[in-house]
C-alpha cells in the first residue's frame, strides 16, 4: 500500500518527477561517458604506442639504454631468429640506433637517429602512413632522412633540404655525414617527432662501422593478451639480453592505464554531487507541497518508519525508472560515438596530440564499470532522498494540518 502510494505520488507532479528521472539519466550518462572517453583515449593511446611506436616488446643489449653507445649491438644469435618464428609473433624488425646532433646552416638540435629497414618498418610502426610531405624511403637520392614536422619547422627544413648528422661510431670517434630530407612525418606523439629521425639502416651502419649488426629488435604480437607469457618465453631464449614490454618502454602510458579509474571516479564524484543536490532540492519541494497531507497521515496513525519509507520509495521508483532509460540512452549514444568518433581538434589543434593522444577519440562503453557506476548513481539518489525523508519525520501533525 505504501509502495502504491509512493508510485502514484511520483506521477502527481509529472514535470518534477521528470526532472529527477532526467537528472538520474544524465548523471548515469555523464558517469558512463567520462569513463567511456577515458577508455577510448587509453585504448587508442595503447594501440598507438604498440602499433605505431614501440611494438609489444623490444630487445636490447642490457647496457645499451644507458648511453646508446654504438658498440652495444645485439649479439649474433640463432635465438633472435627463433623469436621471429614463434607462433604468437606477428612481425619483427631490427634497428640500429644512435644519439647525435642534427645541424644545418641555421642551427643544430639533438636527435635520435634510427636506422631502419623501410619495408619492415612500414608494417611494424606504420611509418609510411605518418608522412605528411615527401616520399617514403626511395633509392633515388643518396642518404635520405625522414624528420618530424616539429623538428622540420624548428630547423627550417624542407623536402630536399640538406643537413648534417654527427655522432660517435663504434670506435668512439666522431663521424658526420650529409643527409637529404626526403620526407616529413607527423605522429600522435609530438615530443618524439621532435627527436626521432629515420635513415636507411645500411647507411647508418656503414657510418657507425658495425657491419650488419643492430641495437634493437622490435617484436609485434598477434594478440595483446599473450604479452606476459611471450615476454617470459623470449627472456628465457635470450637470458643475457634485456627484454622490455611496451609497459616499461612507455611508462607514462602504463601509468595512465593504472590511474584511469581514479581520475574518472573523481569526476564521477563531482557529477554525483550535482545529482544529489538536484534530488535533495526537488524532493524537499515535493514534501513541502504535501505538508498537510503527510501531517494527516501521521494524525491518522501512520508511524514515522512508514512515513520515511513512503518518501524513500518515491526516489527509489524514480531511480528505477531513470536508470534503465539512462543506461539505454548512454549505451546507444556511446556506441554511436564509438563508431563515429568524437573530434577534439575543434578544441585546439594540439590539445590531444601534445599529450600523445589522437584528436579523434572513440569512446568505449565501459561494460566492466557499468555495475559500479550504476550502483554509485543509485546510492547517490537514495542517500539524497534520506535528507528530505528525515525532514518529513520532523513534521508535527497539528501544525501540518493547520496549513
Amino acid at each position, binding site marked *: *500500500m505504501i509502495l502504491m*502510494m509512493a508510485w502514484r505520488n511520483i506521477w*502527481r507532479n509529472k514535470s518534477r518527477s521528470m526532472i529527477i528521472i532526467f537528472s538520474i539519466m544524465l548523471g548515469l550518462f555523464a558517469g558512463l561517458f567520462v569513463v567511456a572517453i577515458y577508455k577510448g583515449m587509453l585504448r587508442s593511446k595503447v594501440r598507438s604506442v604498440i602499433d605505431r611506436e614501440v611494438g609489444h616488446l623490444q630487445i636490447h643489449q642490457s647496457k645499451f639504454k644507458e648511453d646508446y653507445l654504438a658498440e652495444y649491438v645485439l649479439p649474433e644469435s640463432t635465438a633472435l631468429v627463433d623469436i621471429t618464428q614463434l607462433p604468437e609473433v606477428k612481425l619483427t624488425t631490427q634497428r640500429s640506433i644512435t644519439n647525435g646532433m642534427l645541424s644545418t646552416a641555421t642551427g643544430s638540435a639533438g636527435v635520435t637517429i634510427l636506422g631502419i629497414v623501410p619495408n619492415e618498418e612500414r608494417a611494424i610502426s606504420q611509418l609510411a602512413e605518418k608522412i605528411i610531405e615527401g616520399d617514403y624511403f626511395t633509392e633515388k637520392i643518396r642518404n635520405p632522412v625522414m624528420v618530424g614536422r616539429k623538428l622540420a619547422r624548428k630547423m627550417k627544413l624542407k623536402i630536399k633540404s640538406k643537413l648534417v648528422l654527427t655522432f660517435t661510431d663504434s670506435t668512439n670517434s666522431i663521424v658526420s655525414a650529409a643527409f637529404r630530407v626526403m620526407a616529413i612525418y607527423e605522429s600522435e606523439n609530438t615530443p618524439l617527432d621532435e627527436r626521432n629521425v629515420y635513415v636507411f639502416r645500411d647507411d647508418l651502419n656503414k657510418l657507425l662501422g658495425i657491419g650488419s649488426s643492430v641495437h634493437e629488435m622490435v617484436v609485434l604480437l598477434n594478440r595483446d593478451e599473450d604479452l606476459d607469457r611471450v615476454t617470459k618465453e623470449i627472456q628465457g631464449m635470450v637470458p643475457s639480453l634485456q627484454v622490455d614490454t611496451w609497459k616499461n618502454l612507455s611508462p607514462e602510458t602504463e601509468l595512465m592505464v593504472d590511474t584511469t579509474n581514479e581520475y574518472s571516479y573523481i569526476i564521477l564524484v563531482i557529477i554525483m554531487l550535482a545529482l544529489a543536490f538536484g534530488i535533495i532540492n526537488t524532493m524537499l519541494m515535493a514534501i513541502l507541497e504535501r505538508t498537510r497531507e503527510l501531517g494527516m497521515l501521521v*494524525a491518522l*496513525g501512520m508511524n514515522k518508519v512508514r512515513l520515511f519509507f513512503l518518501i524513500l520509495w518515491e526516489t527509489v521508483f524514480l531511480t528505477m525508472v531513470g536508470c534503465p532509460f539512462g543506461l539505454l540512452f548512454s549505451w546507444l549514444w556511446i556506441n554511436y560515438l564509438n563508431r563515429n568518433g568524437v573530434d577534439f581538434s575543434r578544441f585546439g589543434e594540439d590539445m590531444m596530440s601534445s599529450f600523445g593522444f589522437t584528436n579523434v577519440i572513440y569512446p568505449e562503453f565501459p561494460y566492466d564499470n557499468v555495475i559500479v557506476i550504476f550502483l554509485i548513481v543509485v546510492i547517490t539518489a537514495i542517500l539524497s532522498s534520506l535528507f528530505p525523508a528525515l525532514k518529513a519525520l520532523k513534521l508535527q501533525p*497539528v501544525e501540518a*494540518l493547520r496549513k
Partner: protein
Amino acid sequence: MMKNDTVIDAHNISKIYNPETIPVFAVNDVHLHLNRGEFTALVGPSGSGKTTLLNLIGGLDRPDTGNILINNIDITKLSANKLITFRLNHIGFVFQSFNLIPVLTARENVEMIMHLQKSQRMDRDTRIKQLFEEVQLSDKIDSRPSQLSGGQQQRVAVARALASKPQFVLADEPTANLDSKSASNLLDIMAKLNTEEHITFLFSTHDQRVIDRARRVITLVDGKIVSDTLPTSTA
C-alpha cells in the same frame, strides 16, 4: 454493549500558546467526561478553543497541564511513537476539509487504515463494503477524491474514521465546507451510525442546524466550558 461506561475522561487540561510573550489560554482548565455512545457537539465562537481541545483529546497535541484518560489509558504519558499507534487503533478522525489522500481511491483511503493496522486482508473486503454501504457510497467506492463532491468526500472520511473500529470519532467542523443538504445528509449518516452501531461521536460546529441534531452540547468560550447540556435521551 454497556451503556454509560467512560471513553474520555479529561481533568484540568490546559493549553497555553506563547507562554513567554502574550499567553493565550486556548484551553483553560477543562474537565470533560464522555461516555460510550454519546453524540456530542462542541460549540463556541471562533477562537474559543474547539480545535485545540479536540486536538488534545485526539492525541495530536499535548496539554500543558492535566491528564486525558481514554479507556483508562493516560495518553499524556504515552511516548510520541506509542501515541501514533494509539491514535491509529483507538481514535477516528474527520477533518474539516482535504481529508482524503488524493492519489488513493475512496476504497484505498479506507483500506489504508486497515493496512496500517495490519488487519487480515480477508476481513478487509467485507468490512470496507459494509462501511461504504453505511455511508451510502457503494457506487463511488472506486472513485478518486477529486471525482467526489465535498459531501461525498466527508462521508468517505467518516467511513475511514470507522475503519479502525475506534473508541470514538472526533470531527472538527466536518460540515463547515458543505452546503446545507450535504451537511444534513452527513449528519443523518453520523446519527444513524450512532444509534444503530453505538458509535461515539464528538464534533465541533458553528452550524445551528448541526447543533440541533446533537444530544449533548458543550459550549466553550475563551477556552473554558461555559455550559454543558447533558444527554437528553439514550440511544
